[in-house]
Structures are given as C-alpha cells and as structure tokens.
C-alpha cells in the first residue's frame, strides 16, 4: 500500500511496564497495529503475551507506559472502557458465564436497556434487541448453525 506512510496506527502501545511484586510481566514493551493488519504475538510461556493483551484490553493496568487508540492516549480503568473504545478480547479460558445464554454473554457488562419509560424507570433490559443483534453478529461471522440466542452457553459444543 502506498498510503502506509500517512496511516496512523489504530492501536499503539508505548513502553509498557507491568510488574507483579518482584516479577516483571512486561518490560518496556511497545506495539503498533495498523488498520487491516493481523498481528500474531508469539513467545515462550511467561513471556508476557497475556499480560500485554490484558493491559490493552483493560483487564490489567500497566505501571507505566502509554496506550493510544487512533493516536489518542487512553487509560482504561476496566475492560468495559476498552470495549467501548472498540477492543474486544477472547480470553484463553474463554471467560464466559456458562449458565447464561449467548445474548446475555455477548452483552455482559454492557446490557442494552429498553428505550423510553420501562428502560429508564424500571431499568428493563431489551432482551429482544440483544438477541437480534447477537444473531446478526453470528451471521456476520458465518455461524449459521446457532439459531437460538437464548441457549445457555454450556449447552454448546466445541471450545
């Protein structure tokens, strides 16, 4: 691509440091991710791959260093912050609530409320909206076999 030089990384990590007590998890680690790029991070056990991902996805807070999204510095206080900024994470342990259904899991921690009176006053969730949107996402990913978004995650096969 000829425009590479003008492109700005969508995700950028600068000089991240993360320690757990005396153990150094990330030792001044930097990363740049450009639009359309697929990046694989490879390393030995304990190299800090997961810690890096967790820092970028808000599950851990780095001790020092900077994370930039579209060139703007951000500081994630929780994984919700990262998700609102557009960073989704699939964790190693899959990190789902197995007894909850697919739609509830996809919207866990960022549930949609019904518009209007019921949503505002009674805090009613928009079950239907969440189901429809989860199904759209599934279809977009080419998963056509899952029809019922109210199925509990633990009843699904695979892993």
């Amino acid at each position, binding site marked *: 691509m000829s425009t590479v030089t003008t492109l700005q990384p969508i995700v950028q990590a600068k000089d991240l440091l993360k320690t757990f007590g005396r153990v150094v998890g990330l030792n001044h680690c930097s990363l740049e991710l450009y639009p359309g790029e697929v990046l694989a991070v490879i390393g030995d056990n304990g190299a800090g791959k997961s810690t890096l991902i967790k820092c970028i996805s*808000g*599950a851990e807070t780095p001790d020092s260093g900077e994370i930039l999204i579209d060139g703007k510095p951000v500081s994630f206080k*929780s*994984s*919700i*912050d990262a*998700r609102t900024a557009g960073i989704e*994470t699939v*964790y190693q*342990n*899959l*990190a*789902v*609530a*197995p*007894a*909850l259904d697919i739609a*509830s899991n996809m919207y*866990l*921690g*960022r*549930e949609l*409320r019904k518009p209007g009176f019921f949503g505002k006053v*009674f*805090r*009613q*969730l928009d*079950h239907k909206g969440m189901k429809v949107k989860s199904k759209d996402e599934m279809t977009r990913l080419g*998963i056509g*076999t899952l029809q019922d978004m109210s199925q*509990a995650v*633990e*009843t*699904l*096969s*695979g*892993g």
Partner: protein
Amino acid sequence: MSTPTSASDAEALIDNIDNKGFMFRVQGALHRFPWLSPLLVLIIAMIVFTLLNNRFLLPANLSLIMQQVSIVGAIAVAQTLIILTAGIDLSVGAIAVLASMVMAKTAFDQGVPGPMALIIGLIVGTAAGALNGFLVTRLKLPPFIVTLGTLGIFTALTLIYATGRTVRDTELAPILKVMGNVIKLGPFTITWGVIMMILLYVIFAYVLRNTAWGKHVYAVGDDPQAASLAGIRVNRVLFSVYTVGGLILAIAGWITIGRVNAASPNVIPDANLDSITAVVIGGTSLFGGRGTLIGTFIGAVLVGVVSNGLSLAGLDQAYKILAIGILVITAVALDQWIRKVRS
C-alpha cells in the same frame, strides 16, 4: 471448533440428539426450567393429600398453608439471591428476628412512633446484611463461615437487646401488626403478610430477569473471573446482594410480627435452614449461577404443603422432617445431573 460445516454434519448432529432420546430431552428441559421438577412433586403431593383427606383442598386450608409459608417464603427470597452468587447465608433468620425486635422495642420502650420504628428496623436489617457483605467482600472470608459467625452475633444481640422478653400483642404499635391483617379473596383468607411475600417474589423475579443487576448476580455466581473480565465489579455486586438481602429479611421480620402477633427473640428458630431447604428444593444450584425465584416459591410452598398434608393425614411431624430430607437430597442429586449437560 467442531462447528458442523456441511448439511450432512448437521444431520449427524441431529441424529445424535435423537439417539440419546427421552432422558436427554428431560435433562435439557430441566436445564432450561429447573423449577419443573419441584412443580411436578408439588402437584403429585397435592393430589395424594387430597386423596388422604378431602379437607386438604378446602380454601380455608389452602389459605392457612399460604399464611404458614409467608415467613420462610419471604426469607427464602433473600436466600435465593445470595445462593445465586454461590454464597450462602446462615444468619437470615437471625437478621429477620433482630429487625423485628428492633421495630417492636423502639416503639414500645423508647416510645418512637410506629412508622419511624418500622423504618429503624428496616435500616438495622439492611445494615446487618451489609455487615455480611462487607466481611465476604473485604475480608474475603467464605460466606458459610461469615454467616455462621454473624448468626451467633445477631442472635446474641437480639437476646441482649430484648432482655429475654417478648413484646406482646397489646404492646405492639399498630403499623407493626398490619402484616397480620386479613383480606377476604372469595373463599380464601389472605393476610397482608402473604401479599407482601408474593410482592417480594414478583419484584425480585423481575429484577433478576429484566435488569442488568440481575444478570450480573447470575454471572458473578456462575464464574466470578469471567464476570470480572467482562467489566462487572464483582465485589460491588456481592456486597449489594447481601445488603438488599438484609432489607428483604427485615421485611420478613415485619411479616413475622404480624403472623405471630408478637415480637419475640425465640420465634422462627428453624428459619435459617428452612430457607435453604426451600431454595434447594426449588432447583437453585448451591454452586451458584443457576436458579429462579419461581422455583424457590414452589419449594417453599411444597414444604408447607407436605407439612400441612401430613398433619391432616394424621401422621406425626417426624414424617414431615423425613419427607423434606428426602426431597432435599433428591433435588441436589437432580441439580448435579442437570449440570452435566451435553457438550
């Protein structure tokens, strides 16, 4: 991933499901609606007791059962919320009694106006629940141990505060007795206490199903780490559950005053374990994350029906204890089986 990639794979999958047959479908249905099994037992029990004594189905008797269930039924709402988070509360009955003693005595001894005494009692119950929540979340102690300790603390506080004395009917402020007031609904005689209990079920069933907080209660009980990675503040949810539980228990204490027409430190000695019994029979998992309030309601009513039906059949109460014991074991065994769902 073993997602079927072609039509033949999908067919093979469906064949596989069919082959596993009837029990498989039962397991699937129970997984989705864990309250189906206690409901079935409840219907069978009601048929049997009607055959044993035709007075069982009389409106007067059914009304009596509901009145008998109202206290433990209300307490079991709080217990359900707590067990859904994979916790347990052994101090529920003690909190309810503490709150009821505070309501009765602040009005009678300190001369606080009735409505004010009621509010003070509700606050004390809420604070007691919050103390449990604080110990569970901040000191990271297991709920079983925390509430075993606070069971002793709250019971002792109640005894010390009550100075071993019961506040009787005529000494009670009128507002504290309203839960005992009777309403005629056709042939049925319902107390305000019964209505209040049902109201608690309706409100919290709605909250669990239809609010984000409700979903978070399930998620925290199911897998706290996953919930935390999803951005849920696990400790905040846990603390709020024990605190809200305390408020529900204080309301249960209010219902208790109306039901027994007195406030005594020695009422409902079995409420702690009875509430757990109702929750477990209702199909809520002691491992957290799965269960419903409708199940708990059926569980509480089932316990009341068995107790009443056996008395009407002229059997000793020992048989009631035996029957409930068997029901509890069956319910937990069923839960273990349901949790081994297909994969």
